Protein backbone atom coordinates (compact mmCIF):
# COMPACT_ATOMS: atom_id res chain seq x y z
CA UNK A 1 0.00 0.00 0.00
CA UNK A 2 1.18 3.46 -0.85
CA UNK A 3 0.62 6.20 1.71
CA UNK A 4 -0.31 9.74 0.86
CA UNK A 5 3.03 10.79 2.38
CA UNK A 6 4.80 8.57 -0.16
CA UNK A 7 3.13 10.45 -2.99
CA UNK A 8 4.13 13.76 -1.42
CA UNK A 9 7.71 12.52 -1.18
CA UNK A 10 7.72 11.32 -4.82
CA UNK A 11 6.32 14.67 -5.95
CA UNK A 12 9.06 16.46 -4.04
CA UNK A 13 11.76 14.20 -5.50
CA UNK A 14 10.28 14.81 -8.95
CA UNK A 15 10.06 18.55 -8.32
CA UNK A 16 6.39 18.67 -9.21
CA UNK A 17 3.90 20.73 -7.22
CA UNK A 18 0.82 18.57 -6.65
CA UNK A 19 -2.44 19.78 -5.15
CA UNK A 20 -4.00 17.99 -2.16
CA UNK A 21 -6.89 16.77 -4.29
CA UNK A 22 -4.57 15.30 -6.91
CA UNK A 23 -2.57 13.43 -4.26
CA UNK A 24 -5.54 11.12 -3.74
CA UNK A 25 -5.99 10.52 -7.48
CA UNK A 26 -2.28 9.81 -7.93
CA UNK A 27 -2.30 7.45 -4.95
CA UNK A 28 -5.17 5.50 -6.51
CA UNK A 29 -3.59 5.46 -10.00
CA UNK A 30 -0.14 4.43 -8.82
CA UNK A 31 -1.57 1.66 -6.65
CA UNK A 32 -3.54 0.31 -9.56
CA UNK A 33 -0.59 0.47 -12.01
CA UNK A 34 1.90 -0.98 -9.51
CA UNK A 35 -0.61 -3.73 -8.73
CA UNK A 36 -0.59 -4.65 -12.41
CA UNK A 37 3.15 -4.44 -13.08
CA UNK A 38 3.97 -6.41 -9.92
CA UNK A 39 3.03 -9.54 -11.87
CA UNK A 40 6.65 -9.66 -13.09
CA UNK A 41 7.52 -10.92 -9.60
CA UNK A 42 5.97 -14.21 -10.76
CA UNK A 43 8.89 -14.78 -13.14
CA UNK A 44 10.93 -17.13 -11.00
CA UNK A 45 13.69 -18.08 -13.43
CA UNK A 46 17.21 -17.04 -12.65
CA UNK A 47 18.03 -13.62 -13.91
CA UNK A 48 20.08 -13.82 -17.09
CA UNK A 49 23.61 -12.53 -16.90
CA UNK A 50 23.69 -8.88 -17.79
CA UNK A 51 25.50 -8.32 -21.04
CA UNK A 52 26.56 -4.91 -22.27
CA UNK A 53 25.01 -3.88 -25.57
CA UNK A 54 26.73 -4.07 -28.89
CA UNK A 55 27.33 -0.33 -28.94
CA UNK A 56 29.44 0.94 -26.09
CA UNK A 57 31.56 3.97 -25.36
CA UNK A 58 30.36 5.64 -28.54
CA UNK A 59 32.07 8.96 -28.90
CA UNK A 60 31.73 11.48 -31.65
CA UNK A 61 35.00 12.81 -33.09
CA UNK A 62 35.89 15.96 -31.25
CA UNK A 63 36.40 17.79 -34.52
CA UNK A 64 34.99 20.67 -36.54
CA UNK A 65 33.57 22.66 -33.63
CA UNK A 66 31.10 25.35 -34.64
CA UNK A 67 32.26 28.91 -34.24
CA UNK A 68 31.76 30.21 -30.72
CA UNK A 69 28.54 32.19 -30.42
CA UNK A 70 26.79 30.72 -33.46
CA UNK A 71 23.85 29.45 -31.40
CA UNK A 72 24.05 31.79 -28.43
CA UNK A 73 21.24 34.11 -29.52
CA UNK A 74 18.82 31.30 -30.42
CA UNK A 75 19.48 29.33 -27.26
CA UNK A 76 19.19 32.36 -24.99
CA UNK A 77 15.96 33.32 -26.72
CA UNK A 78 14.48 30.03 -25.49
CA UNK A 79 15.36 30.72 -21.85
CA UNK A 80 12.62 32.33 -19.77
CA UNK A 81 15.01 34.52 -17.75
CA UNK A 82 18.32 35.91 -18.92
CA UNK A 83 20.88 38.45 -17.85
CA UNK A 84 23.05 39.58 -20.75
CA UNK A 85 24.59 36.47 -22.28
CA UNK A 86 23.69 34.39 -19.21
CA UNK A 87 20.67 32.43 -18.11
CA UNK A 88 19.64 33.67 -14.71
CA UNK A 89 18.18 31.66 -11.83
CA UNK A 90 17.21 32.38 -8.24
CA UNK A 91 19.82 32.02 -5.52
CA UNK A 92 21.07 28.42 -5.39
CA UNK A 93 22.76 28.32 -1.96
Amino acid at each position, binding site marked *: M*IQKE*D*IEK*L*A*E*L*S*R*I*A*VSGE*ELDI*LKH*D*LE*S*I*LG*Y*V*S*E*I*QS*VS*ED*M*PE*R*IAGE*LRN*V*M*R*DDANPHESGT*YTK*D*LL*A*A*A*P*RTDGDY*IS*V*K*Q*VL
Partner: protein
Amino acid sequence: MAIDPKQLTIAKAAAHLAHKDFSAEELTQAYLDAAEKKNPEINAYLELFSDARDAAKAADARRAKGETNPLLGIPLAMKDNILIKGKHASSASKILETYVAPYDATATKRLKDAGAVFLGRTNMDEFAMGGSTENSAFGPTKNPHDTTRVPGGSSGGSAAVVAADIALGSLGSDTGGSIRQPASFCGVVGLKPTYGAVSRFGLMAMASSLDQIGPFAKNVEDTEILFNAIKGNDPLDSTSAPDARFASASGAKTKLRIGVPESFAYGEGVDPEVVANFKETLAALAKAGHEIVPIELSHITHSLAVYYILMPAEASTNLARYDGVRFGMLKEGAKLFDDYAETRGAGFGREVRRRILLGAYVLSSGYYDAYYHKATAVRAMIEADFARAFTDVDIIATPTAPTPAFAIGEKSSDPLQMYLADIFTVPANLAGVPGISVPSGSMLRDGKMLPLGIQFLAPHFREDMLFAAGKSVEEHTQ
Protein backbone atom coordinates in the same frame (compact mmCIF):
# COMPACT_ATOMS: atom_id res chain seq x y z
CA MET B 1 -4.15 18.50 -64.15
CA ALA B 2 -6.53 18.58 -61.20
CA ILE B 3 -5.01 17.32 -57.96
CA ASP B 4 -7.10 14.81 -56.02
CA PRO B 5 -5.37 13.94 -52.73
CA LYS B 6 -7.64 10.91 -52.28
CA GLN B 7 -6.12 9.26 -55.35
CA LEU B 8 -2.51 10.21 -54.70
CA THR B 9 0.33 8.35 -53.03
CA ILE B 10 3.93 9.51 -52.67
CA ALA B 11 4.99 7.30 -55.60
CA LYS B 12 2.12 8.51 -57.82
CA ALA B 13 2.67 12.17 -56.91
CA ALA B 14 6.39 11.79 -57.65
CA ALA B 15 5.54 10.39 -61.11
CA HIS B 16 3.16 13.29 -61.80
CA LEU B 17 5.79 15.79 -60.68
CA ALA B 18 8.34 14.11 -62.95
CA HIS B 19 5.89 14.29 -65.88
CA LYS B 20 5.16 17.94 -65.06
CA ASP B 21 1.44 17.16 -64.66
CA PHE B 22 1.56 19.65 -61.81
CA SER B 23 4.24 21.50 -59.87
CA ALA B 24 5.33 20.94 -56.27
CA GLU B 25 3.91 24.36 -55.49
CA GLU B 26 0.49 23.37 -56.87
CA LEU B 27 0.65 20.08 -54.99
CA THR B 28 1.53 21.75 -51.70
CA GLN B 29 -1.20 24.35 -52.21
CA ALA B 30 -3.76 21.58 -52.81
CA TYR B 31 -2.78 19.90 -49.54
CA LEU B 32 -2.76 23.18 -47.61
CA ASP B 33 -6.25 23.96 -48.95
CA ALA B 34 -7.49 20.50 -47.99
CA ALA B 35 -5.90 20.83 -44.55
CA GLU B 36 -7.48 24.25 -43.94
CA LYS B 37 -10.84 22.72 -44.72
CA LYS B 38 -10.59 19.43 -42.85
CA ASN B 39 -8.36 20.19 -39.88
CA PRO B 40 -10.87 22.16 -37.79
CA GLU B 41 -12.98 19.02 -37.53
CA ILE B 42 -10.20 16.57 -36.56
CA ASN B 43 -7.56 18.82 -34.92
CA ALA B 44 -4.71 16.76 -36.35
CA TYR B 45 -2.43 19.70 -37.21
CA LEU B 46 -1.35 21.99 -34.39
CA GLU B 47 0.06 24.41 -36.95
CA LEU B 48 0.25 24.72 -40.72
CA PHE B 49 3.51 26.29 -41.84
CA SER B 50 3.09 29.59 -43.69
CA ASP B 51 6.32 29.01 -45.62
CA ALA B 52 5.41 25.56 -46.98
CA ARG B 53 4.82 27.06 -50.42
CA ASP B 54 8.32 28.58 -50.43
CA ALA B 55 9.77 25.13 -49.72
CA ALA B 56 7.66 23.73 -52.58
CA LYS B 57 8.93 26.46 -54.94
CA ALA B 58 12.48 25.57 -53.94
CA ALA B 59 11.73 21.92 -54.76
CA ASP B 60 10.41 22.97 -58.19
CA ALA B 61 13.63 24.93 -58.76
CA ARG B 62 15.70 21.87 -57.82
CA ARG B 63 13.71 19.73 -60.23
CA ALA B 64 14.18 22.31 -62.99
CA LYS B 65 17.93 21.88 -62.49
CA GLY B 66 17.58 18.16 -63.17
CA GLU B 67 17.29 16.72 -59.66
CA THR B 68 15.19 13.61 -59.26
CA ASN B 69 14.39 12.24 -55.84
CA PRO B 70 11.25 10.30 -54.90
CA LEU B 71 10.53 12.85 -52.15
CA LEU B 72 11.36 16.03 -54.10
CA GLY B 73 8.34 18.32 -53.62
CA ILE B 74 6.31 15.80 -51.60
CA PRO B 75 4.20 17.40 -48.83
CA LEU B 76 4.67 15.72 -45.43
CA ALA B 77 3.70 16.35 -41.82
CA MET B 78 5.89 16.20 -38.73
CA LYS B 79 5.06 15.07 -35.21
CA ASP B 80 5.35 17.91 -32.72
CA ASN B 81 8.27 16.27 -30.86
CA ILE B 82 10.70 16.23 -33.81
CA LEU B 83 12.62 19.46 -34.39
CA ILE B 84 12.45 21.60 -37.52
CA LYS B 85 14.74 24.60 -37.27
CA GLY B 86 12.87 27.86 -36.67
CA LYS B 87 9.52 26.14 -36.03
CA HIS B 88 7.64 25.62 -32.82
CA ALA B 89 8.03 22.16 -31.32
CA SER B 90 5.98 21.66 -28.18
CA SER B 91 5.45 17.90 -27.72
CA ALA B 92 1.83 19.05 -27.29
CA SER B 93 2.77 20.33 -23.83
CA LYS B 94 2.08 23.66 -22.18
CA ILE B 95 5.61 23.58 -20.77
CA LEU B 96 7.02 23.94 -24.32
CA GLU B 97 4.23 25.99 -25.87
CA THR B 98 6.55 28.82 -26.87
CA TYR B 99 9.64 26.72 -27.67
CA VAL B 100 11.19 27.27 -31.11
CA ALA B 101 13.64 24.64 -32.40
CA PRO B 102 17.16 26.05 -32.83
CA TYR B 103 18.27 23.20 -35.12
CA ASP B 104 16.97 20.43 -37.39
CA ALA B 105 16.58 16.85 -36.20
CA THR B 106 18.65 14.49 -38.35
CA ALA B 107 15.43 12.92 -39.72
CA THR B 108 14.22 16.43 -40.62
CA LYS B 109 17.49 17.30 -42.29
CA ARG B 110 17.46 14.11 -44.35
CA LEU B 111 13.92 14.80 -45.55
CA LYS B 112 14.85 18.41 -46.37
CA ASP B 113 17.89 17.19 -48.29
CA ALA B 114 15.58 14.87 -50.23
CA GLY B 115 13.43 17.89 -51.09
CA ALA B 116 10.34 17.08 -49.00
CA VAL B 117 8.02 19.92 -48.01
CA PHE B 118 6.77 20.21 -44.42
CA LEU B 119 3.13 21.25 -44.30
CA GLY B 120 2.87 21.51 -40.53
CA ARG B 121 3.31 19.88 -37.17
CA THR B 122 0.91 17.31 -35.83
CA ASN B 123 -0.92 16.77 -32.57
CA MET B 124 0.12 14.04 -30.14
CA ASP B 125 -0.21 12.84 -26.58
CA GLU B 126 1.87 15.16 -24.43
CA PHE B 127 5.53 14.03 -24.59
CA ALA B 128 4.29 10.94 -26.48
CA MET B 129 2.65 9.59 -23.33
CA GLY B 130 -0.63 7.99 -24.25
CA GLY B 131 -2.45 5.86 -26.76
CA SER B 132 -5.25 8.17 -27.88
CA THR B 133 -3.93 11.73 -28.48
CA GLU B 134 -6.38 12.82 -25.76
CA ASN B 135 -3.45 13.84 -23.53
CA SER B 136 -2.57 16.83 -25.75
CA ALA B 137 -2.53 20.23 -24.05
CA PHE B 138 -4.14 21.52 -27.25
CA GLY B 139 -7.23 19.30 -27.36
CA PRO B 140 -7.74 15.77 -28.69
CA THR B 141 -7.36 14.73 -32.31
CA LYS B 142 -10.37 12.93 -33.78
CA ASN B 143 -10.35 9.83 -35.94
CA PRO B 144 -11.14 10.78 -39.57
CA HIS B 145 -13.19 7.54 -39.92
CA ASP B 146 -15.45 8.42 -36.97
CA THR B 147 -14.96 11.76 -35.24
CA THR B 148 -16.44 10.45 -31.96
CA ARG B 149 -13.45 8.12 -31.72
CA VAL B 150 -9.75 8.56 -30.98
CA PRO B 151 -7.11 8.24 -33.74
CA GLY B 152 -4.87 6.25 -31.41
CA GLY B 153 -1.63 7.62 -30.10
CA SER B 154 0.68 8.95 -29.24
CA SER B 155 1.34 9.90 -32.90
CA GLY B 156 -2.42 10.33 -33.50
CA GLY B 157 -2.08 13.55 -35.48
CA SER B 158 0.52 12.07 -37.82
CA ALA B 159 -1.75 9.07 -38.52
CA ALA B 160 -4.89 11.18 -38.93
CA VAL B 161 -3.38 13.63 -41.47
CA VAL B 162 -2.45 10.72 -43.75
CA ALA B 163 -5.85 9.04 -43.28
CA ALA B 164 -7.66 12.34 -43.98
CA ASP B 165 -5.57 12.97 -47.14
CA ILE B 166 -4.15 16.21 -45.78
CA ALA B 167 -0.53 14.97 -46.03
CA LEU B 168 1.03 12.32 -48.26
CA GLY B 169 3.08 10.94 -45.41
CA SER B 170 4.37 11.90 -41.99
CA LEU B 171 6.84 11.05 -39.27
CA GLY B 172 5.99 9.91 -35.78
CA SER B 173 7.80 8.33 -32.87
CA ASP B 174 7.15 4.91 -31.34
CA THR B 175 8.14 4.03 -27.77
CA GLY B 176 5.57 1.31 -27.11
CA GLY B 177 3.36 1.37 -30.20
CA SER B 178 2.88 5.10 -30.82
CA ILE B 179 3.24 4.68 -34.59
CA ARG B 180 1.72 1.23 -35.17
CA GLN B 181 -1.37 1.54 -32.97
CA PRO B 182 -2.59 4.87 -34.48
CA ALA B 183 -1.78 3.51 -37.96
CA SER B 184 -4.10 0.60 -37.19
CA PHE B 185 -6.85 2.87 -35.79
CA CYS B 186 -6.68 5.23 -38.79
CA GLY B 187 -6.27 2.67 -41.57
CA VAL B 188 -2.79 3.67 -42.74
CA VAL B 189 0.64 2.01 -42.74
CA GLY B 190 3.00 2.76 -39.83
CA LEU B 191 6.57 1.52 -39.36
CA LYS B 192 8.61 1.33 -36.18
CA PRO B 193 12.13 0.70 -37.50
CA THR B 194 14.79 -1.34 -35.71
CA TYR B 195 16.14 0.39 -32.60
CA GLY B 196 19.06 2.44 -33.87
CA ALA B 197 18.03 2.42 -37.55
CA VAL B 198 16.88 6.05 -37.60
CA SER B 199 18.77 8.79 -35.78
CA ARG B 200 16.98 10.28 -32.79
CA PHE B 201 19.04 13.47 -32.77
CA GLY B 202 16.41 16.20 -32.46
CA LEU B 203 13.65 13.92 -31.15
CA MET B 204 12.45 14.87 -27.67
CA ALA B 205 13.41 11.87 -25.57
CA MET B 206 10.78 9.93 -23.65
CA ALA B 207 12.27 6.50 -22.88
CA SER B 208 15.66 6.32 -24.53
CA SER B 209 16.06 2.53 -24.63
CA LEU B 210 12.73 2.26 -26.51
CA ASP B 211 12.16 5.44 -28.57
CA GLN B 212 12.36 5.25 -32.36
CA ILE B 213 11.34 7.63 -35.17
CA GLY B 214 9.40 6.13 -38.07
CA PRO B 215 7.10 6.95 -40.99
CA PHE B 216 3.37 6.84 -41.75
CA ALA B 217 2.06 6.53 -45.31
CA LYS B 218 -0.95 5.32 -47.27
CA ASN B 219 0.74 2.14 -48.46
CA VAL B 220 3.82 0.01 -47.92
CA GLU B 221 5.67 1.31 -51.00
CA ASP B 222 5.47 4.90 -49.71
CA THR B 223 6.48 3.80 -46.21
CA GLU B 224 9.58 2.21 -47.69
CA ILE B 225 10.45 5.40 -49.59
CA LEU B 226 10.24 7.44 -46.37
CA PHE B 227 12.20 4.89 -44.34
CA ASN B 228 14.99 4.78 -46.93
CA ALA B 229 15.24 8.57 -46.77
CA ILE B 230 15.64 8.80 -42.99
CA LYS B 231 17.56 5.64 -42.02
CA GLY B 232 21.30 5.32 -41.55
CA ASN B 233 24.09 6.02 -39.12
CA ASP B 234 24.37 9.44 -37.52
CA PRO B 235 27.41 10.51 -35.47
CA LEU B 236 25.11 12.86 -33.54
CA ASP B 237 23.18 9.93 -32.03
CA SER B 238 25.39 7.57 -30.01
CA THR B 239 22.73 4.82 -30.17
CA SER B 240 22.60 4.96 -33.97
CA ALA B 241 23.57 1.67 -35.63
CA PRO B 242 26.77 1.49 -37.72
CA ASP B 243 26.12 1.47 -41.47
CA ALA B 244 27.54 -2.03 -41.77
CA ARG B 245 24.52 -3.37 -39.88
CA PHE B 246 22.14 -2.20 -42.62
CA ALA B 247 24.12 -3.82 -45.41
CA SER B 248 24.09 -7.23 -43.75
CA ALA B 249 20.34 -7.53 -44.13
CA SER B 250 18.97 -8.06 -47.60
CA GLY B 251 17.38 -10.57 -49.90
CA ALA B 252 13.80 -10.94 -48.66
CA LYS B 253 12.29 -14.26 -49.60
CA THR B 254 9.11 -14.22 -51.66
CA LYS B 255 7.53 -16.95 -49.54
CA LEU B 256 7.77 -16.20 -45.85
CA ARG B 257 7.50 -18.46 -42.85
CA ILE B 258 5.21 -16.49 -40.55
CA GLY B 259 5.03 -17.34 -36.83
CA VAL B 260 1.87 -16.64 -34.83
CA PRO B 261 2.16 -16.59 -31.02
CA GLU B 262 -1.35 -18.00 -30.69
CA SER B 263 -1.89 -17.98 -26.94
CA PHE B 264 -0.81 -14.32 -26.93
CA ALA B 265 -2.61 -13.15 -30.08
CA TYR B 266 -5.90 -14.78 -29.11
CA GLY B 267 -5.63 -13.92 -25.42
CA GLU B 268 -8.12 -12.36 -23.05
CA GLY B 269 -9.38 -8.87 -23.91
CA VAL B 270 -8.87 -9.15 -27.66
CA ASP B 271 -12.06 -8.15 -29.53
CA PRO B 272 -13.56 -11.24 -31.27
CA GLU B 273 -13.92 -9.29 -34.51
CA VAL B 274 -10.25 -8.32 -34.34
CA VAL B 275 -9.37 -12.00 -33.97
CA ALA B 276 -11.68 -12.94 -36.88
CA ASN B 277 -10.13 -10.30 -39.14
CA PHE B 278 -6.63 -11.39 -38.14
CA LYS B 279 -7.40 -15.03 -38.96
CA GLU B 280 -8.89 -14.04 -42.35
CA THR B 281 -5.74 -12.09 -43.13
CA LEU B 282 -3.55 -15.05 -42.18
CA ALA B 283 -5.70 -17.29 -44.39
CA ALA B 284 -5.19 -14.90 -47.31
CA LEU B 285 -1.44 -14.93 -46.69
CA ALA B 286 -1.42 -18.74 -46.59
CA LYS B 287 -3.34 -18.80 -49.86
CA ALA B 288 -0.71 -16.49 -51.34
CA GLY B 289 1.91 -19.15 -50.58
CA HIS B 290 3.28 -18.06 -47.23
CA GLU B 291 3.58 -20.60 -44.47
CA ILE B 292 1.77 -19.90 -41.19
CA VAL B 293 3.05 -21.70 -38.10
CA PRO B 294 2.16 -21.42 -34.41
CA ILE B 295 5.02 -20.31 -32.15
CA GLU B 296 5.53 -19.81 -28.45
CA LEU B 297 7.12 -16.70 -26.93
CA SER B 298 7.10 -17.75 -23.33
CA HIS B 299 7.78 -14.40 -21.61
CA ILE B 300 5.86 -12.14 -23.98
CA THR B 301 2.84 -11.94 -21.67
CA HIS B 302 5.06 -9.99 -19.24
CA SER B 303 5.88 -7.33 -21.85
CA LEU B 304 3.32 -4.79 -20.76
CA ALA B 305 4.34 -4.99 -17.09
CA VAL B 306 8.02 -4.68 -18.02
CA TYR B 307 7.22 -1.76 -20.28
CA TYR B 308 5.23 0.15 -17.67
CA ILE B 309 8.20 -0.10 -15.29
CA LEU B 310 11.06 0.74 -17.66
CA MET B 311 9.30 3.46 -19.65
CA PRO B 312 8.26 5.66 -16.67
CA ALA B 313 11.69 5.11 -15.08
CA GLU B 314 13.43 6.42 -18.20
CA ALA B 315 10.86 9.16 -18.76
CA SER B 316 11.19 10.48 -15.21
CA THR B 317 14.89 10.93 -15.90
CA ASN B 318 14.56 12.37 -19.41
CA LEU B 319 11.89 14.88 -18.42
CA ALA B 320 14.02 16.29 -15.59
CA ARG B 321 15.36 18.75 -18.16
CA TYR B 322 12.06 20.67 -18.31
CA ASP B 323 12.63 22.86 -15.29
CA GLY B 324 11.87 26.37 -16.48
CA VAL B 325 15.54 27.37 -16.58
CA ARG B 326 16.89 26.87 -20.11
CA PHE B 327 13.73 26.68 -22.21
CA GLY B 328 9.97 26.53 -22.06
CA MET B 329 7.63 28.16 -19.59
CA LEU B 330 8.52 29.41 -16.13
CA LYS B 331 6.07 29.72 -13.27
CA GLU B 332 7.78 31.62 -10.50
CA GLY B 333 7.79 30.41 -6.93
CA ALA B 334 9.30 31.80 -3.71
CA LYS B 335 12.65 30.05 -4.03
CA LEU B 336 14.59 28.18 -6.71
CA PHE B 337 13.03 24.82 -5.75
CA ASP B 338 9.56 26.36 -6.02
CA ASP B 339 10.42 27.68 -9.48
CA TYR B 340 11.05 24.09 -10.57
CA ALA B 341 8.06 22.57 -8.77
CA GLU B 342 5.56 25.24 -9.80
CA THR B 343 6.75 25.20 -13.42
CA ARG B 344 6.58 21.42 -13.69
CA GLY B 345 3.32 21.18 -11.74
CA ALA B 346 1.60 23.69 -14.02
CA GLY B 347 3.42 22.86 -17.26
CA PHE B 348 3.01 19.07 -17.34
CA GLY B 349 -0.37 17.45 -17.87
CA ARG B 350 -1.83 14.77 -15.62
CA GLU B 351 -0.50 11.70 -17.46
CA VAL B 352 3.02 13.14 -17.60
CA ARG B 353 2.98 13.92 -13.87
CA ARG B 354 1.66 10.42 -13.20
CA ARG B 355 4.43 8.72 -15.18
CA ILE B 356 7.19 10.83 -13.67
CA LEU B 357 6.03 9.92 -10.15
CA LEU B 358 5.71 6.27 -11.14
CA GLY B 359 9.24 6.38 -12.55
CA ALA B 360 10.57 7.97 -9.38
CA TYR B 361 8.85 5.20 -7.39
CA VAL B 362 10.28 2.23 -9.32
CA LEU B 363 13.76 3.77 -9.23
CA SER B 364 13.74 4.60 -5.51
CA SER B 365 16.24 2.65 -3.43
CA GLY B 366 13.76 0.43 -1.57
CA TYR B 367 11.99 -0.71 -4.74
CA TYR B 368 14.71 -0.66 -7.40
CA ASP B 369 15.45 -4.41 -7.22
CA ALA B 370 11.80 -5.47 -7.13
CA TYR B 371 10.77 -3.31 -10.07
CA TYR B 372 13.43 -1.76 -12.29
CA HIS B 373 16.10 -4.41 -11.91
CA LYS B 374 13.61 -7.26 -12.27
CA ALA B 375 12.07 -5.61 -15.32
CA THR B 376 15.45 -5.31 -17.08
CA ALA B 377 16.00 -9.04 -16.43
CA VAL B 378 12.60 -10.03 -17.84
CA ARG B 379 13.25 -7.75 -20.80
CA ALA B 380 16.40 -9.78 -21.55
CA MET B 381 14.29 -12.95 -21.44
CA ILE B 382 11.81 -11.44 -23.92
CA GLU B 383 14.70 -10.50 -26.24
CA ALA B 384 15.96 -14.08 -26.00
CA ASP B 385 12.46 -15.40 -26.83
CA PHE B 386 12.46 -13.33 -30.04
CA ALA B 387 15.97 -14.41 -30.99
CA ARG B 388 14.96 -18.04 -30.54
CA ALA B 389 11.73 -17.61 -32.53
CA PHE B 390 13.58 -15.99 -35.43
CA THR B 391 15.78 -19.05 -35.82
CA ASP B 392 12.59 -20.87 -36.88
CA VAL B 393 10.41 -18.24 -38.60
CA ASP B 394 11.12 -15.24 -40.86
CA ILE B 395 8.62 -12.91 -39.27
CA ILE B 396 5.99 -12.88 -36.52
CA ALA B 397 2.37 -11.73 -36.93
CA THR B 398 -0.17 -10.44 -34.38
CA PRO B 399 -3.08 -8.02 -34.54
CA THR B 400 -1.70 -4.47 -34.10
CA ALA B 401 -4.18 -3.57 -31.35
CA PRO B 402 -6.69 -5.63 -29.35
CA THR B 403 -9.62 -3.42 -30.41
CA PRO B 404 -10.58 -0.95 -33.13
CA ALA B 405 -10.44 2.79 -32.30
CA PHE B 406 -12.25 3.42 -29.02
CA ALA B 407 -14.53 6.33 -28.16
CA ILE B 408 -13.10 9.66 -27.01
CA GLY B 409 -13.27 9.70 -23.20
CA GLU B 410 -13.83 5.94 -22.93
CA LYS B 411 -10.51 5.18 -21.24
CA SER B 412 -9.30 8.60 -20.15
CA SER B 413 -10.22 8.18 -16.48
CA ASP B 414 -8.55 4.76 -16.15
CA PRO B 415 -4.86 4.84 -17.09
CA LEU B 416 -4.47 1.06 -16.74
CA GLN B 417 -7.21 0.36 -19.32
CA MET B 418 -5.47 2.79 -21.68
CA TYR B 419 -2.15 0.99 -21.16
CA LEU B 420 -3.69 -2.37 -22.12
CA ALA B 421 -4.21 -1.03 -25.67
CA ASP B 422 -0.41 -1.35 -26.12
CA ILE B 423 -0.33 -5.09 -25.44
CA PHE B 424 0.70 -6.21 -28.94
CA THR B 425 3.04 -3.33 -29.75
CA VAL B 426 5.34 -3.02 -26.70
CA PRO B 427 7.26 -6.31 -27.22
CA ALA B 428 8.95 -4.94 -30.38
CA ASN B 429 10.26 -1.91 -28.48
CA LEU B 430 11.54 -4.08 -25.62
CA ALA B 431 13.37 -6.37 -28.05
CA GLY B 432 14.43 -3.53 -30.37
CA VAL B 433 13.09 -5.35 -33.42
CA PRO B 434 11.25 -3.58 -36.27
CA GLY B 435 7.47 -3.69 -36.55
CA ILE B 436 4.92 -2.56 -39.11
CA SER B 437 1.16 -2.13 -39.03
CA VAL B 438 -0.64 -2.65 -42.32
CA PRO B 439 -4.42 -2.13 -42.87
CA SER B 440 -6.17 -5.50 -42.90
CA GLY B 441 -9.76 -4.43 -43.51
CA SER B 442 -12.41 -2.91 -41.32
CA MET B 443 -15.31 -3.77 -39.05
CA LEU B 444 -18.72 -2.21 -38.52
CA ARG B 445 -19.32 -0.67 -35.11
CA ASP B 446 -22.09 1.77 -34.18
CA GLY B 447 -22.86 2.36 -37.86
CA LYS B 448 -19.28 3.28 -38.83
CA MET B 449 -16.65 1.24 -40.62
CA LEU B 450 -13.54 1.21 -38.41
CA PRO B 451 -10.13 0.18 -39.79
CA LEU B 452 -8.14 -2.74 -38.37
CA GLY B 453 -4.45 -3.56 -38.78
CA ILE B 454 -2.14 -6.54 -38.80
CA GLN B 455 1.31 -6.22 -37.24
CA PHE B 456 4.46 -7.96 -38.46
CA LEU B 457 7.71 -8.14 -36.49
CA ALA B 458 11.06 -9.09 -38.03
CA PRO B 459 14.62 -9.65 -36.83
CA HIS B 460 16.80 -6.57 -36.32
CA PHE B 461 17.41 -4.63 -39.57
CA ARG B 462 15.03 -6.83 -41.57
CA GLU B 463 12.56 -4.09 -42.46
CA ASP B 464 12.76 -5.53 -45.98
CA MET B 465 10.83 -8.59 -44.80
CA LEU B 466 8.19 -6.37 -43.18
CA PHE B 467 7.73 -4.56 -46.48
CA ALA B 468 7.46 -7.87 -48.34
CA ALA B 469 4.81 -9.17 -45.91
CA GLY B 470 2.95 -5.85 -45.97
CA LYS B 471 2.83 -5.76 -49.76
CA SER B 472 1.51 -9.30 -49.75
CA VAL B 473 -1.34 -8.22 -47.44
CA GLU B 474 -2.11 -5.27 -49.73
CA GLU B 475 -2.11 -7.50 -52.77
CA HIS B 476 -4.17 -10.39 -51.41
CA THR B 477 -6.72 -8.81 -49.08
CA GLN B 478 -7.93 -5.67 -50.83
